[in-house]
């Protein structure tokens, strides 16, 4: 099962390496990770998505908590929370297909942020499922390039 884990850490250099090293050293996989400063510039917020049995996830949260630079760890599994991800996707288009692509993007309330003769670049935020659904629909047109941020989450 996928778990979304929120981690508050000291905003110091080397902290990201500690977290990444913990995952690699103990053989845990990170699906995605996003980091940025919080309102308090001395604290950074990480959102980590990881997979594993409950026992593994319990170890991950405990091992994270053990790090001196980690202030707080919260596993959102079983909690009410809002999650978002952002994607930028450059889709191949022709004069015939452009309208259809724009229509699909419209349904998803995405934005066209760039356009040229042979492609459009779409920006979409939403849950992982929503982004996957858009990408599925765009795939037949030919996806040239794709960048996803990884998930961020906030408790309700």
């Amino acid at each position: 099962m996928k778990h979304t884990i929120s981690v508050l850490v000291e905003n110091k250099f080397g902290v990201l390496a500690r977290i990444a090293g913990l995952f690699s050293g103990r053989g845990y996989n990170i699906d995605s990770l996003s980091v940025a400063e919080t309102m308090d510039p001395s604290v950074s917020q990480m959102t980590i998505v990881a997979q594993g049995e409950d026992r593994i996830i319990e170890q991950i949260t405990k091992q994270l908590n053990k790090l001196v630079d980690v202030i707080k760890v919260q596993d959102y599994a079983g909690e009410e929370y809002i999650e978002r991800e952002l994607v930028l996707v450059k889709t191949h288009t022709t004069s015939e297909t452009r309208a259809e692509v724009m229509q699909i993007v419209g349904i998803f309330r995405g934005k066209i942020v760039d356009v040229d003769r042979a492609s459009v670049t779409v920006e979409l935020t939403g849950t992982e499922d929503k982004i996957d659904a858009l990408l599925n629909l765009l795939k037949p047109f030919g996806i040239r390039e794709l960048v996803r941020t990884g998930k961020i989450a906030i408790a309700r």
Partner: protein
Amino acid sequence: MKGCEIVVEALLREKVEVMFGYPGGMIMDVFDVLYGSPIRFILTRHEQGAAHAADGYARATGRVGVCIATSGPGATNLVTGLATAYMDSVPVVAITGQVPTPMIGNDAFQEADIVGITRPITKHNFLVSTVEELPRILREAFHIASTGRPGPVLIDLPKDIQKAETDARMPEKVEIRGYKPTYAGHPQQVRRAGAEIARAKRPVIYAGGGVISSGAERELKALAVKAGIPVTTTLLGLGAFPETHALSLGMLGMHGTVYANYAMMESDLIVAVGARFDDRVTGKLAAFAPNARIIHIDIDPASVQKNVKVHIPIIGDVRNVLGQLNEIARKGDTGEWLKRVAAWKREHPLAYSRKDGLKPQFVIETMRELTKGEAIVATDVGQHQMWAAQYCRPVRPRTFLTSGGLGTMGYGFPAALGAQAAFPDRLVVVISGDGSFQMNIQELATAVENDLPVKVLVLNNGYLGMVRQWQQLFYKGRYASTCLARDARCPTICDGKAKKCPPYVPDFLKVAEAYGAAGIRVEREREVAPALREAFRIRKPVVAEFIVAREENVFPMVPAGAAMQEMIKGIDLA
């Protein structure tokens, strides 16, 4: 004050009386201040020796051990020692020099990213980036190393910061928002544990190194006696419960006693205290103690529910929690159980045959008799370590120093030097093998020069014995690279014609003599006691070499990956 002066001031403030290390270009400023300071400085002959000595000092005293080295190779040479201390939760502070801040990342001479290298083998580490934060970092380093589950902390100190001036003062209080260990056990969990203990018919206490770290030996004994529970200890827990006590089962696990392993497997309640269900203890997890409920007391939440399912976890300092538990613990109905355990002890004692040459177990037993368990014993790693664990039978904590988690050959001798530096008047004995001893044999110079009269008992069987034992049992007797007498003229695969074996290298007596230590060689049983007495009498370091039966094996043995009751019990004395 300059950075280098702040370092020494902090060490004095932490009441550091002795430290171990090796100088070099990027740490010279700190050494310059140490020169003439009240701190006793012991120059080892290799930085690894310094790290192990700091570790041995810490294990023997319970205080933080300190080691220091220069950048690059000096720092990387500490790595094995830090990993050893990390695996066994030993409080050590290591200070390393680093190239000046502007040069970091430029592949400067003797530059290594030691903070990156030691990240997974330290409890925490610091790269000091401004002199202003140095006093706080020094304070935090000692705090982190010695509190919670202890462990090594490394401070990497660039040369320009050692030279920089600051007005920053040492903070009075340490306040780290991400580091707040839990010390008191949750009262409700303690009550539940108390009820389980009262209900149990076949309980056993499984005590680890955490009992010694937290100084809980009295509380442990009180619980065992009050509730009528037999006690087995891990390798690191040796000394946490006196092995002379009727309730003691000695060590459990791969080379543990038959009765300790039987007791674990048959128990209906395991009270794990400051232990972590290591694979060398549990054997095959799926078959481990199938009928037991488990209470697990530990200060590290990550140790709980890691390997086995625990029914009652209690996070807290072992000493506090046992104190809380003792207030409510009652004796359960364990009479029958204690009789069964006593019968196992009678039926399956530790045993070895004294036929066919001098036996290493005999040497250790004789040492134990002569010292009455009063000596501080440090071991290296291998067969001799397991025999020491079986036959030393320590009665006090902090008298058996051994590398359990990492299993570091070369640990014992420098660790003993650290212990001897802490206790100049006590007898410190190293039990080593001819393989392990050569991994840090250069520290003989340190021992002689610093008047650290440790007694090194080298059990010489001419093999890397533990690996040879595995080769004999699991690799069809193919002794690949474990014979220390082997030379270039030997056939590719040994044909076992012992008559033509090359002479053993080195001559340990000559090595001892070359360094100015005393050397004794013993080949027969009757010489053992007189030789040991002589070694203990001499006021200088002694290397006592015992030429022991070459292919003696450590038994009992639970093969790796087997269930605990699948023991090879070893010899039948009848």
